[in-house]
């Protein structure tokens, strides 16, 4: 063991001498490449002495027997040796660095001291062991140096303030766009974020510091970092654009890289002359740098919407207590002390409900009392809200009297008075308030000319007049509503007409003629007892006449007691076949799946039984017209009459007009077959669907449909 210590002693001493030698002559030394490799192992090896030194120093506080403590020198020896080796490596590494920042200098000095202390603690361990008090003093001092050395070392490898960054809070930065500086607010933050680890404050790797304009222009050991106006000659840009694999690429490949946006900003800034004291908004409006830069800092500008107020927030429990279903009190935003108050529900609103807000008077910024019966007395209270900016009194009961108080409100910017009894006088009073920016006076007691004049006098203010054309604008009236829809009826029928707009004059005809200004005026429901078609239209002063609407009421004839299909309707459209044709229910043309009987493959041949012999002179067939769904008028319709349901006599055949082009019409047509009065009990109807749809139709060549819904016999 003794020989071990002997060798150790020698090595330690030699190491110490060598260390001091390079420390003294580091500027004059030229390091061969293989030694550089040795030097670069510094960050690896340094962990050994740290652990060993700590261990050997802590032992003075451990409850050790003095005799056992004798065994510690070996640890101290190894600690001292590794400390010396690490320090030597560190020195070699530091020689490589052409430019030495402050941190490096501190690290160097403390590292050397640490090595010497380690050596000394080994060399004089006997002395220290004799009295642990000496030991503790030496160890305590050693620990401090160790921590400092380690900290500065870490700063070198990880960057300034690496350790404390997570707990040192920098408040979220906001930028006022009008004051934004091109360099300080846009370029510098890029440098700080992406380059500061190596090129800011104490760190000046490659001799480059980005601290201020002077050092930036000076550049580093490889040349000028930037040449104003010349992007190609600026080393900053060159390094950024080198491939990531290139050793000279900046920022180092394991560090956060610049975004494309940042690179563009940097390039444009250099191109534009790399000005350090230029306002962002001083650039021309269409300048790419300006546009890009504004875009870049937009998030910071936006966050500024949380305005700073000189009052503090009310407690959230207080705010909560003030809320109910008819009064909403809410902060403008999370963490904002300002409150917005809205009232809903006229019946609950009172002076009391206003005064309950006394405890948050200071915080109220927006107050919405729209449609509340606000009285002039209550305005006293409102005028006492020191920070109110926005007041909505639309359709409240206030009058000119309260305007004087409102004109004294120091912070009021927006005032809504639409639908109130305010007159010109009141507005003129309130305009004495020079803080106002917008006043809404639509639908008040002011005339349009008064408003226009006032606006002229106060061009700095927005006096919103709103829509003033009620008297001059002529708008088309919509059609009246025939409450009684087209129908079949027996006996008589009451017809009701109406219109959505009050004060409208409705005129109508029941003879099929167009309704005009000479037609009958509708005064109330009227009754008809015969088949008729009514046409209705509406007029009102200041409006264009409406379009005409019409309806047809068809009086039922002889009742049909039985319907018998001699040919089956198509199974898809036979759902209600047994009663659809004689139920006197006018089917909706939009719903042909259940309300209409349809034929396609075969003719419709149907027998109607009137129960007894009747003098018949006309048959009406309600047939669907809806070309888009292949529903055509029948090719022909024939009626036969019979008294015994066996011997038939043809009474009439009609050939309805076939369409010549695709018409978008979807209606039921009452096809009429008139003939000389004949006494019959049975009637047979035959209708032929179109065999081949014509070529102009998308379904050309396919068979068409014949749909019918009701048959009326007179």
């Amino acid at each position, binding site marked *: 063991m003794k020989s071990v210590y002997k060798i150790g002693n020698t090595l330690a001493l030699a190491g110490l001498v060598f260390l001091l030698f390079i420390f003294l002559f580091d500027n004059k030394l030229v390091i061969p490449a293989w030694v550089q490799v040795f030097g670069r192992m510094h960050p690896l090896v340094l962990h050994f002495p740290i652990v060993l030194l700590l261990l050997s120093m802590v032992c003075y506080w451990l409850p050790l027997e003095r005799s056992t403590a004798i065994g510690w020198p070996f640890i101290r020896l190894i600690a001292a040796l590794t400390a010396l080796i690490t320090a030597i490596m560190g020195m070699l590494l530091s020689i490589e660095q052409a430019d030495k920042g402050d941190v490096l200098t501190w690290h160097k000095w403390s590292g050397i001291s640490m090595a010497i202390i380690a050596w000394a603690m080994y060399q004089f361990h006997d002395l220290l062991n004799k009295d642990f008090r000496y030991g503790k003093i030496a160890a305590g001092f050693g620990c401090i140096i160790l921590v400092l050395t380690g900290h500065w070392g870490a700063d070198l490898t990880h960057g300034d303030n690496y350790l404390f960054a997570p707990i040192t809070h920098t408040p979220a930065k906001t930028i006022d766009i009008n004051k934004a500086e091109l360099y300080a607010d846009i370029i510098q933050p890029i440098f700080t974020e992406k380059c500061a680890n190596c090129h800011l404050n104490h760190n000046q790797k490659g001799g480059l510091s980005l601290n201020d304009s002077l050092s930036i222009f000076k550049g580093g050991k490889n040349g000028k970092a930037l040449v104003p106006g010349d992007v190609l000659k600026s080393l900053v840009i060159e390094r950024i654009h080198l491939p990531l694999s290139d050793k000279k690429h900046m920022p180092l490949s394991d560090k956060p890289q610049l975004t494309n946006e940042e690179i563009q900003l940097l390039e444009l800034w250099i191109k534009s002359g790399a000005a350090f004291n230029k306002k962002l908004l001083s650039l021309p409006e269409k300048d790419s740098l300006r546009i890009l830069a504004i*875009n870049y800092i*937009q998030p910071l500008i*936006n*966050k500024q*919407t*949380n*305005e700073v107020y000189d009052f503090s927030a009310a407690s*959230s429990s207080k705010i909560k207590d003030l809320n*109910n*279903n*008819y009064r*909403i009190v*809410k*902060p*403008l*935003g*999370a*963490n*904002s002390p*300002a409150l917005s108050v*809205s009232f*809903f*529900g006229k019946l609950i609103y009172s002076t009391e409900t206003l005064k309950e807000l006394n405890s948050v008077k200071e915080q109220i910024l927006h107050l919405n009392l*729209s449609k509340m019966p606000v009285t002039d007395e209550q305005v006293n209270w409102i005028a006492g809200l020191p920070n109110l900016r926005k007041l*909505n009194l*639309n359709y409240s009961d206030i009058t000119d009297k309260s305007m004087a108080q409102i004109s004294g409100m120091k912070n009021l910017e*927006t005032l*809504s008075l*639409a639908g109130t009894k305010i007159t010109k006088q009141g507005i003129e009073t309130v305009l004495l308030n020079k803080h106002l920016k*917008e006043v*809404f006076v*639509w*639908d008040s007691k002011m005339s349009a000319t008064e408003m226009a004049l006032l606006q002229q006098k106060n061009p700095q203010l927005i006096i*919103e*007049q*709103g*829509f003033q*054309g*009620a008297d001059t*604008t002529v*708008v*088309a*009236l*919509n059609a009246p509503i025939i409450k009684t829809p087209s129908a079949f009826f027996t006996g008589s029928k009451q017809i009701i007409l109406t219109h*959505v*707009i*009050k004060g409208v004059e409705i005129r109508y005809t029941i003879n099929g003629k167009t309704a005009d200004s000479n037609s009958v005026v509708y005064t109330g429901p009227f009754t008809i007892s015969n088949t008729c078609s009514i046409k209705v239209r509406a007029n009102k002063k*200041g*409006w264009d006449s409406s379009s005409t609407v019409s309806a047809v009421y068809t009086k039922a004839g002889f009742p049909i007691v039985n319907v018998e299909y001699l040919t089956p309707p198509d199974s898809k459209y036979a759902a209600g076949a047994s009663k659809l044709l004689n139920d006197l229910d006018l089917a909706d043309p939009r719903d042909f799946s259940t309300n209409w009987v349809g034929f396609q493959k075969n003719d419709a041949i149907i027998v109607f039984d009137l129960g007894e012999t009747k003098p018949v002179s006309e048959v009406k067939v309600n047939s669907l017209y809806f070309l888009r769904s292949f529903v055509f008028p029948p090719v022909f319709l024939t009626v036969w009459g019979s008294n015994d349901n066996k011997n038939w006599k043809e009474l009439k055949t009609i050939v309805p007009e076939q369409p010549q082009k695709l018409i978008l019409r979807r209606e039921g047509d009452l096809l009429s077959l008139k003939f000389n009065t004949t006494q019959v009990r049975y009637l047979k109807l035959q209708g032929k669907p179109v065999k081949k749809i014509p070529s102009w139709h998308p379904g050309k060549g396919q068979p068409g449909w014949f749909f019918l819904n009701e048959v009326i016999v007179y």
Partner: protein
Amino acid sequence: MEKELLEHGLNMNRRKFMSRMSIGLGSAALGSLLIPDLFGGSASPEEAIMRGLPHFAPKAKRVIYLFQNGAPSQLETFDYKPLLCKMMGENLPESIHGTQRLTGMSAFQKSFPLMGSYYNFNQHGKSGAWVSDLFPHMSKIVDDICIIKTMNTEAINHDPALTFFQSGAQQGNRPSMGSWVSYGLGTENNNLPAFTVLLSRGKGNGQGVYSKLWTNGFLDSVHQGVQFSSGENPILYLQDPDGIDRGTRRKMLDQIASLNQLELESYGDPEIASKIQQYEMAYRMQTAVPEIMDTSKESESIIKLYGADCLVPGTYAANCLLARKLSENGVRFVQLYHQGWDQHGNLPTEMKGQAMDVDQPSAALITDLKQRGLLDETLVIWGGEFGRSNYCQGKFSIDKYGRDHHPRCFSIWMAGGGVKPGMVYGETDDFGYNVVKDPVHVHDFQATVLNLMGLDHEKLVYKFQGRRYRLTDLYGKVVNGIIA
């Protein structure tokens, strides 16, 4: 109520407890790492959402979304392309068409003849925005709106595109935008739902809208869109049945609530708590809704502004008027759908009809909100689910042409609520086929709408079945260029 809900959420249920046990104590420590603020004091974003507050001071408090269902053509509305008229009938150049997939309706056409607009365009307002002659009323308000010409989407068919716009995903069942807003901000007026839906139908070729478009998805069912229909009962089953007066109803609700409360205490299912809330809100809605639906007190000036149809329930005009009234009364998100914009053929005629339906009421809504001082806090959106092709679909005909679906660029407009007025955003190429500058993807649009409402689309998150969901999925960038 909210506090109890929170407590329930924090209480571990049996299954969670067992799974915790199996992982052991280490997971508790890990848990505190995953929820960084667990032991800290600052409010987590989740908590802010629970309080129903915007993440930052919002520009808009409410949204009215005038959805033009079926996809109106950008080439006959706001995207003026004279080149298409010049090159009328020439084939769409391959270089412009690129690799765009087409629907089965026109993919097999032998040629793709370019088709210019049947309607003329003119510049309007101080902004000089181009608007087609189909929209004389909207032309008058161009200085109040921001036209975005570079909207683009991924879907090429109606249902997926519509669902994508509304929920951020092409398949259904994710929460709708209105539900997200309701979830993020809560209701403004406790007597009305935060999210309502109004439907209308034009005469043009229509496409269906389904209730999945206003679903709450995995969010609490209080956030579901409530449909107002045009009949006598605008909200189905809201009215008390004959023979039941409000006192009886009150008693009944109290009893149901106490039963539900027992159930909630033993199972802790938050859906039971929503049910109690919904019963209560429905009770209050019984008085609030008829008041809003009553249009008999509207002045002649308002009727003339919106057009006479605004008094005919179920029309687009009536829905616009109703939307204003709902919004004015604190409904956060009013969603309108107007069907009938799917012009595969006969476009000039059909679009004219559609434009007649929506032109005046849409413009009136802006004017009306403005004159009440509400426009700056109400965001109005007008637009469809995608655009239409610059080539003619089907038979080439100058007055009966059709246009197929086109997802690469289309126009919408936004107004009020913190959007820059009198602005045209983005540029498309001369063919009206591709975006040249400032594209706005559907996710960007959604991010922007949420931003205007004071919500950070990256923080408005809901965890469901082990995955965190956002309206914008993993995408979306706020379009700062249109924010005032």
